[in-house]
């Protein structure tokens, strides 16, 4: 009997829940206060956007919406670590990441407002749109990374799955492909403890979700997903590695889904309120604000001003969204194929003819 392989999963946190550094040798980002402030502003923007989106849904102005509440550090951490030429393959609540990539808030609303035009967005044309079927986007990320590798482009694909999605074959096969071909891709697991009503511990017997990467031979870490310094540190490391041709990584980010799963869900049916209250103490904005204040680069006035600015940007986005025209019936046909096949052309003509009864 001999040991032929050994592995460790390490956990990284740099800012504790009160915004205090937990070690002395902090990553460079901790002293880049301009960038941190910028990240904080984006996270705040996302939070205010999110709040508004839920209100729009509640008042019948938006369809079912998946909140990103509590995930801001993960999403903004992901998106801000990427270059334009990289590719994002999101799931369905990563507005922070999408906004870093240039997607407009109005476009996100347009999407959830039931209009495909929202996915024809201002972000990079090579970025994937929101993906509903869980974990299928991981394949797209590995596939993009395969294209980059074959074309010898120094580009990286970044994707994200939930704790729930980490049980799915698509995620696991995509990891294996990334490991087998040493692809430039970063897999983020947003472990927010719940997959709708199914708690993390029912998803898997694995002690950590990060260790799913071990199955594919990938470097895998766990970080505090409410600490953007930790998220960015791990992202930067993984992206650098990928860009240098050294292959893929897995980053499990521990956070909590502070909202209902979507506006169609009522989480009070299945999870205790004190768990949610406890989780609020760990959420990512409080600590980053505290840190910035401790560093003397943030004040209550600035906070008020930021909130006003963000709210007004959201209002503009809402206006833009509300003014987005309802798609013509022809839109249903015109993007199915590059060239409309004759049978579909007939259906299109029929649809136009009969659309009003």
């Amino acid at each position, binding site marked *: 009997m001999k040991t032929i392989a050994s592995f460790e999963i390490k956990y990284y946190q740099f800012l504790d829940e009160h915004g205090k550094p937990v070690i002395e040798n902090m990553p460079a980002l901790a002293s880049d206060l301009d960038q941190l402030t910028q990240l904080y502003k984006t996270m705040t923007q996302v939070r205010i956007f999110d709040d508004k989106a839920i209100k729009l849904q509640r008042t019948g102005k938006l369809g079912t919406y998946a909140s990103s509440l509590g995930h801001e550090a993960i999403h903004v951490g992901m998106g801000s670590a990427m270059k334009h030429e990289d590719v994002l393959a999101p799931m369905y609540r990563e507005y922070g990441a999408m906004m870093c990539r240039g997607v407009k808030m109005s476009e996100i609303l347009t999407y959830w407002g039931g209009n495909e035009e929202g996915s024809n967005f201002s972000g990079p044309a090579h970025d994937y749109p929101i993906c509903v079927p869980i974990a299928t986007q991981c394949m797209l990320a590995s596939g993009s990374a395969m294209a980059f590798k074959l074309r010898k482009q120094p580009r990286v694909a970044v994707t994200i799955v939930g704790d729930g999605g980490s049980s799915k074959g698509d995620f696991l096969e995509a990891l294996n492909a990334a490991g087998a071909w040493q692809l430039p891709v970063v897999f983020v697991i947003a472990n927010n403890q719940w997959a709708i009503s199914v708690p993390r511990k029912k998803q898997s017997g694995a002690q950590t979700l990060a260790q799913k990467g071990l199955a594919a031979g990938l470097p895998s870490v766990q970080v505090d997903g409410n600490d953007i310094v930790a998220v960015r540190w791990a992202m930067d490391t993984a992206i650098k590695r990928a860009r240098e041709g050294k292959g893929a990584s897995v980053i499990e980010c521990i956070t909590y889904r502070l909202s209902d799963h979507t506006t169609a869900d009522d989480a009070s049916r299945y999870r205790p309120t004190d768990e949610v209250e406890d989780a609020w103490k760990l959420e990512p904005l409080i600590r980053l604000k505290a840190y910035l204040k401790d560093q003397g680069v943030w004040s209550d006035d600035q906070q008020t001003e930021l909130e006003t600015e963000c709210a007004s940007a959201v209002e503009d986005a809402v206006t833009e969204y509300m003014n987005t025209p309802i798609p013509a019936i022809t839109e*249903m046909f015109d993007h199915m194929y590059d060239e409309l096949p004759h049978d579909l052309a007939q259906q299109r003509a029929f649809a136009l003819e009969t659309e009003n009864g």
Partner: protein
Amino acid sequence: MAEITLVEAVSMALAHEIAHDPDVVILGEDVGINGGVFRATAGLQQRFGDDRVIDTPLAEAMIAGIAIGMATQGMKPVAEAQFMGFIYPMIDQIICHAARLRNRTRGRMSVPMVLRAPYGGGIHAPEHHSESTEALFAHMPGVRVVIPSSPSRAYGLLLAAIRNPDPVIFLEPKRIYRLYKEEVTDDGEDLPLDMCFVLRDGGDVTLVTWGAMTKETLEAADALTEQGISAEVIDVATIKPLDMDTILESVKKTGRCVIIHEAARTCGVGAEIAAQLAEKGLYDLHAPVQRVTGYDTIMPLYKIEKKYMPSTARILKAVNDVMEMS
């Protein structure tokens, strides 16, 4: 005797069978304490325990595979795909094992499982939540495909599906989950799995449909009555095996047939029905068969999803067309 909705009838049938047969087990995502995203399994875990109503990890292929494994060992799992749009990873296990193990082993093994999924559009749901791909399953030898369209048929057909010793794909028209209530007795009486239901008798034209489209079809039949046209309405209910005899008999009487379904047109189940009419009912047809269907496009996001769905008006137009022809 209680007035219940279609989704409540689903719950009632599940509760009935789980109470009466220790081999019956429900499994799926969020079927437990959450009671399913549509409340189809509401209260069942609380009532019967978490070894009878089991929340699974998020992996559809696995849900199907686990159900097949359990079924081959003598249990009667009722698995759920949360939406039909998420059923596709299950197809491999369904085709390779659920539909084949009996034949592969010459009857030594069998797969008495049910796969439930809410299906269809029209509820302003996100992408992939509005699928109607029953035709894919209808093309698979070895399975049965059942679609109820009323509370009482949901109850009786689901009981039959669970009791059936072969795999049944049970698709629930979620748009009419709560459309209306009906008195359904929890008497454990099941319905046959190979028979159409004639919802309305008529002599001028046969309207064939299933699932949520029964709503628009019946509305069309009402409107036709006012026009003096008497429409026979058939709810296919058991998509596979298909009860063509009932449809052929009706067309023999009416000479005209309009088939209505929400699914994409090409190679939908409507095609099979029309094809059999062309084979076995040709001489009875006084006018071309018409299909009123979804388009061969992706169901649009909700802003214009209604424009995708076959409307009462489209049904009426088709009927009027066939009435004019002879």
